């Protein structure tokens, strides 16, 4: 996308600056992210960044008291978050890191049939709004408070038509949440089961509750996971962190992950990074309702990296097959993975 900005200059302190416009800046920033700026464009962005030096210094205009109020307030914020993260490091039970890899867990449940029983129990209640997506379908929902939820395929989101003090939604499946902050600081809660929910105040994150387990990935903001019923059974997530567990929330595992990796589906692509075919099969089952069989079990250990489009399942499968040098044959809802005959 080439955007040409009107050539516009201004002079300040004897230097000539090119005036930046919004589209141009966003264009340069996008390019900067993907490393596609030409040397001239990179210099243009740099010049814009530098031009701000012309503005006065904010803290110079503060009194000594104002300055120390700001210094202390900021430091306190930092220490608060630091202290919270230290807490959970201490809380992590030793030796829990044994089951690394979603893949191993997914392998054990790969051939289970999705049991939708849980869904109906709350769908029938009166005064509730229920939204569901079919296999392979993603849909963007706007909640009554303006929060946005992108629902991945084969997922159900439900909530009371009239929210009381608490904004609570229930999720089966996978959703990407952009929660807005309300003026009266009302809590937003996502519940995935009787024993697990999380509370947020204005944030972006991905929640996935599938047969294979529950997974929370936080992109921005702050969420608190409630692992049980007790007040103290909580953990606070920071951006870029993921928490997952198979059945019991208390057996959670926590790690740092690459931002966007787990929520790429909402932009109609799947991003893999050393992801095994076993994990891919889990996603295909959960989101597209496709069961996978491998002609040789070890094929499922193959790992792939890269991204594939999700709007078209056949293209997706083709991409996966390419990346892992296998053939994938589709027969209705059944996929058969076989080695490529050379």
């Amino acid at each position, binding site marked *: 996308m080439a955007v040409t900005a009107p050539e516009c200059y201004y002079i300040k302190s004897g230097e000539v*600056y090119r005036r930046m416009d919004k589209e141009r800046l966003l264009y340069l920033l996008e390019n900067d992210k993907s490393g596609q700026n030409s040397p001239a464009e990179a210099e243009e962005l740099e010049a814009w960044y530098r031009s701000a030096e012309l503005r006065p210094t904010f803290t110079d205009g503060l009194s000594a008291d104002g300055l120390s109020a*700001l210094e202390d*307030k*900021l430091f*306190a914020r930092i220490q608060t978050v630091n202290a919270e993260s230290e807490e959970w490091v201490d809380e992590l039970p030793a030796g829990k890191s044994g089951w690394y890899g979603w893949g191993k867990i997914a392998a054990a449940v790969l051939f289970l049939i999705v049991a939708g029983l849980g869904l109906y129990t709350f769908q029938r209640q009166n005064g509730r709004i229920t939204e569901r997506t079919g296999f392979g379908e993603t849909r963007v929902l706007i909640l009554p408070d303006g929060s946005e939820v992108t629902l991945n395929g084969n997922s159900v989101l439900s909530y009371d038509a009239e929210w009381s003090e608490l904004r609570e939604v229930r999720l089966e499946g996978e959703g990407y949440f952009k929660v807005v902050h309300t003026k009266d600081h009302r809590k937003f809660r996502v519940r995935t089961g009787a024993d697990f929910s999380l509370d947020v105040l204005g944030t972006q994150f991905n929640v996935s509750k599938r047969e294979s387990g529950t997974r929370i990935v936080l992109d*921005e903001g702050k969420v608190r996971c409630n692992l049980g019923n007790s007040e103290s059974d909580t953990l606070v997530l920071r951006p870029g962190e993921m928490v997952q567990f198979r059945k019991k929330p208390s057996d959670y595992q926590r790690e740092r992950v690459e931002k966007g990796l787990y929520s790429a589906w909402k932009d109609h692509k799947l991003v893999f990074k050393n992801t095994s075919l076993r994990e891919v099969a889990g996603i295909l089952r959960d989101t597209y309702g496709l069961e996978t069989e491998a002609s040789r079990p070890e094929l499922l250990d193959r790992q792939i990296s890269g991204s594939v489009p999700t709007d078209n399942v056949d293209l997706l499968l083709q991409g996966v097959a390419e990346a892992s040098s296998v053939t994938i044959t589709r027969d209705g809802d059944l996929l058969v993975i076989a080695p490529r005959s050379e």
Partner: protein
Amino acid sequence: MQTGDSEAFAALYRKYWRRLFDAAYRRILLREESEEIIQEIFVDLWAKRETLLISVSLEAYLFGALRYSIYNLIRSRKIREAYLEHLLQVPGDQNNYIEDRLHYEELARALESSVQNLPEKLRKVYLLSRKEHLTYKEIAEQEQIPVDTVEKQMGRALKILRENLKEFAWAWIALEMWGLYP
């Protein structure tokens, strides 16, 4: 820093926070977002303190992280488009400066007057902890009172201050922290 020394961390913070904050504020002219960016940079630094290998100077690293955060903020469209337009149009807008500086002056004033209004005993303990940077133990020795009394008094002082400074949202956390890190 790499040994996880919190004193070294505090020293780094004191050395760099102001220049970082000014650099952020100049570019986005938003007080809260600037605070958030600086917070994230230091939280990140602390989280990575044992693994981070900086191949450039720490200063270059911090200002690089700052640039990255500012770019991200603008890219993520968390800044409203209309505001971005305004930001780019006006090279030396002073309005935000005045309003935002006022916020910190008010915070300082509100804190000061709340402290003045604390009951005598609580104020003394609070000031020794906050201004003289004494630990609870040191205060107990100096004032000839048990440590848990110091703790209780500090707790009461913080509770009162917190109540008084409610409208400053984050300020109450600041107070909490002074309690945690006397």
